[in-house]
C-alpha cells in the first residue's frame, strides 16, 4: 500500500530536520522545533517517524513515541494540535498588564471572537497568551507569527490584523 501523501510530506520534513540537527538525543528539541515550524504543529506521524529514525540502542539512543509527546507537550512553543495560519501571542505578564494590557487582550478576544487557545473556524487565526517575551519597555506587546508589535492600544487591533489579509 502506498502511504498517503500527507504522511510522505511529514516524513520528508522529519528527515530534513534530522539531517540538519543530527541523530543524538540532545538534537530532539531542535528537531521538534524544526518540524513544528515547517508544519505549524507536530502531528502524530512525526513522532512515529522521529522515533523510527533515531531509536538506536546500539548507539545508546533510546527514544519512545511517548517521550517525544512528553517533550512536545512540555514546551510552550511546540504544539501537538493544528493551529491557525497565523498565531497571535499576547503577553499576559505583569509589566504589560500594568500599562494597559488587559484592555488590549479584551479587544483581541472580541475582534476575533476567540478565547485563549482558540482557533477561528476558517483556520486563519489562533489566539494564545504567552509569558514575557522580553520587550517590556514597549508594553503591551503582542506577537503575530514572528512579527512584534509594541505599545499596542485596543484601537490599533483592527489595523494590525489587516496586514495579514
Amino acid at each position: 500500500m502506498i502511504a498517503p501523501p500527507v504522511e510522505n510530506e511529514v516524513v520528508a520534513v522529519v528527515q530534513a530536520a534530522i539531517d540538519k540537527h543530527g541523530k543524538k538525543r540532545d538534537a530532539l528539541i531542535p528537531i521538534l522545533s524544526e518540524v513544528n515550524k515547517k508544519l505549524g504543529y507536530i502531528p502524530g506521524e512525526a513522532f512515529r517517524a522521529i522515533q523510527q529514525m533515531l531509536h538506536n540502542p546500539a548507539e545508546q539512543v533510546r527514544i519512545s513515541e511517548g517521550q517525544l509527546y512528553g517533550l512536545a507537550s512540555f514546551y510552550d512553543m511546540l504544539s501537538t494540535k493544528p493551529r491557525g495560519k497565523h498565531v497571535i501571542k499576547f503577553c499576559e505578564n505583569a509589566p504589560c498588564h500594568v500599562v494597559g494590557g488587559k484592555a488590549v487582550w479584551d479587544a483581541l478576544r472580541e475582534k476575533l471572537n476567540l478565547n485563549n487557545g482558540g482557533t477561528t473556524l476558517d483556520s486563519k487565526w489562533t489566539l494564545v497568551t504567552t509569558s514575557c517575551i522580553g520587550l517590556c519597555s514597549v508594553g503591551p506587546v503582542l506577537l503575530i507569527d514572528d512579527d512584534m508589535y509594541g505599545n499596542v492600544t485596543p484601537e490599533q487591533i483592527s489595523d494590525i490584523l489587516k496586514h495579514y489579509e
Partner: protein
Amino acid sequence: MKTKRAMILVSNDPESIRLGANKLIYSLNKALAAYNLQDEVDVSTITDVNRSNVLPLVIVYPEAVVYGPVKPEDAHLLIEEHLYKGRIAANLLAPPKQLTGLIGSLRTHRGYNPAEQRIVLERAGRIDPENIEECIAANGYEALGKALTAMTPESVIDIIEKSGLQGRGGAGFPTGRKWRFVRAAPGEKKYIVCNADESEPGTFKDRIVLEGDPHVILEAMAIAAYAVGADEGYIYIRGEYGLAFRRIEKAILQAEEFGFLGKNIFGTDFNFKIHVHAGAGAYVCGEETALLESLEGKRGEPRARPPYPVTHGLWNKPTVVNNVETLANIPAILRNGAEWYRSFGTPSSPGTKVYTIMGNVNFSGVIEVPMGITLREVINIYARGMKPGSTLKLAQTGGSSGSIIPAVLQDTPMDFESFRKAGVSLGSGALLICDQHTCIVDLAKVLLQFFRFESCGKCTPCRVGTSRAFEIIERISQGKGRLEDLDALPNIAGEMERASNCGLGQTASVPIRDMLKHFRTEVEAHIRLGSCPTGVCQFMEEPENSQKISNF
C-alpha cells in the same frame, strides 16, 4: 463600617513629638473637620520612619506621598490641597534623600541622559555586533589573549574571586568560588554553560547583551573554560530570542575564523568549542538544572539537588553555569583588575548592575549603574520621574519571583546585602514601577497566573500550591473572598517554600507574602467591604443558579 478613602500617617517617635507631632495631629483633625472630611479620612501614627532630617513626617495613603517636615500651621494647607482639592501640596513634600555618592561621581557621556557606568553594556550599541573587527578594535578578545598567554588558570580564578563578582541571574553566588569548585572537581571532561534563557517577566538585559555584543559572551566563556579546564561550552538561548540566536551563531563562526575559538587558541594548546542551543518556551528552564535537562534533550524538569552542577552537571560532568550578565563582566575584570572592579558598587556587592525599568514612568529601558543606588534614584533620575498624574505605589523588583516593594522602602540601597536585610530580593534586576491605579490583588493574580502556567508539574507543592493560591486570589478579586483566605494564603506559601523542588515553587510564595505584609488593608477591603479601593477589580453578581448550570 464606612470605607475611608484616605489615611494620614504622622510620625510620633520621640524626636517628632519634640518637634510638635502631637500638635500637628490635632491641627490635621481640625482641618479635616473644617472641610467636613472627618468621616472620609483617618489620621494615625507611625514610628521609625528613618528620616531624621525631615521630622515630623506625614505620609498620605493610598498615594503614599511623603511630606516633611510639616509644622502644625501647615496642616490646613496640606488638607486643603491633597485631600480637598486632590492635588499634591508640592511645597510641603519631603526632599528626596541625598544621592548615595555611588552615582554622584559618574560621568555623563550620552548627551542629556543621566550618567551611567557601563561595564557589561560597554560595547553594546557602540559597535556593529555582526562585525568582529569592530569588537576587536574596542578591546575585544584582549582579556582572553592575556589570560592564555600571561596567566595561569589559578591566577584567573584568583582575580575573579578578588573582584567579588556575584552571579547576576538572581541568586548572587560568588562566581570565582563556583569556578574554583569546578576546577577542583574530579574528571577530565568539563563544560561551560551560558544561561541565556532569560524569561523572568520584565527582564531583557541579557537580550541587549546577546544582540548588542555577542562576542563578549564567547570571550568570557573561553576564559572560564581555560580557568576550570573545560574544552566545550553551550549557550542556551530561549527560543523566543531569534535575533540573539542568529547573532551568536554568526559571532561563533567569526571567532572560529579569527582563531579565538577552536583549536590552539592564540597559539597555545588550549582548545574550546561553543555550541548554541535554542529553547522551546519554558520559564522553568532558566533554573540551572532544568536547563541542563533541556540541553540533554529532555523535559526541562529541575533535578533534585545536591549533587550540584559544579560536580554533576551536563551529562553528569562538572559544569559551570553562568548567567549572561555575569559572564559579560569577566573580560573587563581581567583587563582592568580586581581593584578597579571593586571601585564600583558597595564593598559587599561590587560592580555594576543592569536594570530594566518599566511601568508607569516616563522612560522605560535598560540602564547600567553601580550596585547600591536606591529605587528613588532610579525612578527620579533614570526613569525621569513618574508619568504625569502618577504617584508611586509599589515597585516590583526582579520579575515575578522578585519582591513587591511599597513606596516607603524606596530608599533602600539596591545591593544584595541591603536587600537581604530588608527582606526583599534583587532578583534579575527588573524594576516594574506601579502607580496608584494598580490594585495589589489584581497584580498578585497576574503573578500567580504566571507561576501556575509555568510550573513544570514535577513536584506537588508547586503544581498544586500555585493553582490553589491563584484560585483564592482570583476569588478575592471577584469579591468572593473569605476571611479564612487570609490564613490559607500564608499556609500555602509556607508549604511551597519548604517543600518545592526548585526556585520556581519556592519563590512563587513571594508575591503572596509581600501582598499580605505591605498591603493587607487593601486585601481586606476586597473581602470585608466587597470593594476594590483602586476600582480595578470588577465584582460581578453571580446569577443564583449558575452553580447548577455549570454542573449540568
